[in-house]
């Protein structure tokens, strides 16, 4: 299977002098095309930092990140932005939508940057995605007029607009109630089923249990990893048990 991301010996530190601390302490990761992975760990373990490093949003101090055959540390700021816009998708814990735009405009904004002439086509695609995640009624609403779950769906639509090779999710269900969280996870599963790689950062075992590979982090290192079979929709309790057992085993 082709590797979409290869991270080798990544080091990332914050602070200076005596206060300098390695948040990523020689971490190596690989993610395959179409893979569904998650990173778990307690707060401050470095899981979000790892996601930012792998997506090229944040620079690294040492090591190497290769995305789809390209070394990210060798690319310029603008080239990294182009990759994020056209080949990656992002969903964050707080719905990162722009306040002045309505829901539809928020979804199409990255695509419109490059392809304004095809506005009609872009809008059609956005509407189709909105329908898929059941927010087609909301396109003209302001972001202050819809619920957190609906905003998160809009964020997912925006991430999917460019048909990304991978979607990064940083605690995508962290701000949602359990029903909304489950619905969002169903959407991620569906995206993955269509061939897009998904990497989720979470400390919620129910979220991690839906993925096929879970990396556990502690103090800037990946301390363990576990694999699960493809989620079929009925075995969630069994998967949960396995994940929590693993967590107990490694003490996080």
């Amino acid at each position: 299977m082709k590797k979409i991301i290869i991270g080798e010996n990544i080091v990332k530190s914050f602070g200076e002098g005596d206060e300098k601390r390695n948040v990523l302490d020689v971490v190596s990761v690989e993610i395959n095309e179409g893979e569904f992975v998650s990173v778990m760990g307690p707060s401050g373990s470095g899981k979000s930092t790892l996601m930012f490093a792998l997506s090229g949003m944040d620079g690294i101090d040492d090591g190497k990140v290769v995305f789809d055959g390209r070394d990210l540390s060798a690319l310029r700021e603008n080239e990294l932005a182009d990759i994020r816009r056209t080949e990656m998708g992002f969903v964050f814990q707080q719905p990162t939508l722009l306040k002045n735009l309505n829901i539809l405009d928020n979804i199409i904004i990255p695509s419109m940057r490059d392809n304004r002439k095809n506005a009609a086509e872009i809008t059609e695609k956005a509407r189709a995605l909105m329908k898929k995640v059941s927010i087609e009624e909301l396109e003209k609403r302001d972001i202050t007029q819809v619920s957190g779950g609906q905003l998160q769906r809009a964020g997912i639509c925006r991430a999917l607009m460019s048909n990304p090779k991978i979607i990064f999710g940083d605690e995508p269900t962290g701000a949602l109630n359990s029903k909304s969280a489950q619905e969002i996870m169903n959407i991620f599963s569906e995206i993955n089923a269509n061939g897009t790689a998904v990497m989720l950062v979470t400390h919620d075992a129910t979220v991690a249990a839906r993925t096929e590979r879970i990396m556990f982090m502690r103090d800037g290192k990946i301390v363990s990893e576990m694999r699960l079979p493809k989620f079929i929709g009925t075995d969630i309790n069994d998967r949960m048990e396995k994940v929590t057992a693993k967590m107990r085993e490694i003490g996080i």
Partner: protein
Amino acid sequence: MYYRIIRKDILKSKVITLTTMIFIAAAAMLVSLAAILVVNLSGAIDTLMTQAKTPHFMQMHSGEIDTGRLTAFAEEYGNVDEFQVLEFLNVDGAQIIFEERSLADNVQDNGLSKQGEKFDYLLDLDGNVINVSDGEIYVPICYMRDNTAKVGGKAVICGKEFTVAGFLRDSQMNSMLSSSKRFLVSENDYMEIKGLGSTEYLIEFRLKDLSALGAFETAYTSAGLETNGPTITYPLFKMINAISDGLMIAVILLVSALVVAIAFMCIRFTLLAKIEDDYREIGVMKAIGLRVTDIKKIYLAKYAAIAMVGCILGFALSFVLRGILLENIRLYMGESENSSFALLFGIIGILLVFLAIIAYVNGVLKRFRKISAAEAIRFGTSQEKSAGAKHFCLSRNRLFDTNIFLGVKDVLARKSIYVTMLAVLVISAFIIIVPQNLYTTISSKSFITYMGIGSSDMRIDIQQTDNISEKSVEILKTMKGDTTISKYAVLTTKTFKAKTEDGLEESIKIELGDHSIFPLEYSEGRAPVAEDEIALSVINANELDKKVGDVIPLVIEGKEKKLTVCGVYSDITNGGKTAKAVFNDNSADIMWSVIYAELMDKSLVGRTASEYANRFHFAKISGIDDYISQTFGPTISSIRKASFAAIAVALIITLLVTLLFMKMLVAKDRYSIAVMKAFGFTNSDITAQYVSRSVFVLIVGIVLGTLLANTLGEILAGILISSFGASSFKFAVNPLSAYLLSPLMMVCSVLIATTIGTSGVGQIKISENIKE
């Protein structure tokens, strides 16, 4: 606690705090300077006019004088305290030579005078009455200012040599606005030269009761005494003395109002941004039961600190600068008696600025009351959405580049924030365009229509000489035989008495002759054609309360002659009070004559003018362009300087305010910038969005500013010009500079400021701003 909060807050936003403080300091400095100057100027004028014992009423007169009759009038009229007739010997500028440099090109009417016997003293620079010895001359202070004369230097006047013993302050004629300047010589020297110039009399009175000046003026006119010349009264002397420095104070006050307004806008903007930032905290504070006044105190304390430092800084600066600005007042008028009050008024001015700022901040903070604690805690931002931008959707955008669209959309969606920047840009555009248009108007050839004269090529003035009528005829004869001259006309000005509605008599200067040869534009009616018609200047028409069709009775040789007003025209010469008629008159003395001529070949104006000048020494001959530049040269050049200064100030304000706003916006928008970067917008995309925001606001600002300049600005300039006697003022616009160069300069400053202001976009890290 307040100290810690303020310190932390200020350190976090150094540039913004500093800029706000600079504007406050500038405003405080200007207000304090204006207060100090007002107190010093009024004090200095009072001191000067008291020391010099300035006349309460002065009638200038040329021609025959009956001193006996005047003395009898003075003795009879109970309110007269003192009376004297001073002589003023008009000397041609070419006859006054300082160290080989003559005053031939000088626009002033220079002349010699003796020291006043009872009052109207000429003072030295220490404020003492000058006692001049034979062979000495005291020179008006304006010639010290322009380095024409030096103490101890030689002066040759009409061939007689004098030593410059010092400079004098003249409470009547100090100001550059007064067209005459008196040189002081001894009685003996005066008598020696007397025959070499033309004598003008200054008939002067001091009254026991100055408040009855109006009654005295009427009595003087009714008594039929000497009136061949202008009349000037005490309040007018005071005004003339005050006006040039007064104008400077007015400009300082205007600029300080502008700077205060800008300081307010900066404060409003920074405050609104801060409130938006702290929305959730404010909600929490409200929720835990803090009173709105308690919350306000935290914000007020910060601005009180900034305002205090700014005001102290401004006061210190005004202390440093006041010396330079007071120099002119001290030189021309001497020390002020109440200069100790100046400090007090300066402090009061500063306090007013400080209190105004606190009141303003308090006013802006009123919106705390509207913040709902629940909403603030839940959403962290105000849920108010501005209407109007809703239909401006990206999904429907086919026209603009996405970055431009996002920039414009942001401006439309957050109008309340951008309105501050817009206001500053409108003001900037206004202060760039109005002085510029005023300069274009005054320096354009069409401005002659406001001067009460028709369009001609050459102008010959015959005045302050005897036999004016014969001398005019002599010139006219030459013109008749001159083939280069296509047409000419002589207009002779005489003083008549007009009867007002209430039966009193008032002097009126009437220009007699054929007004159809060089017609001028009439704002109402037409030129006088028949013997019983008269046209009035705008100011005269207003003062006499006459309209076209009304009748004015003139008193000529004791008989009443009724003239019908046939037209009204703009005239800003001769104090704006002139009239034109065609009737023949041999009764009154001629005050002056003007001959206008048109040449076959316009390119020969300069040559013909100098030919005539060589031939007729008694006349002042100039091409019409030279005449305009001589008459308005200093005004045109000061307006030109003012317009350049206005452009510089406006551009600096534009640059500073845009820089401040952009820095604020970037700081405020860190989160959304990080979001856009996260989903793939580059730094240059984001800079492009900010540039389109500022350019969009700028375009609206320029359009509004230009509209305002051409409406309100034109009205304001019209009011200014109409006070000099012009009606229906219209701007003459130089479209290239007003509508192309000026906006381009503004665009450049805004682009520079936006580029510098948004340079921080590159440093905004996605991870630091989005990480959960």
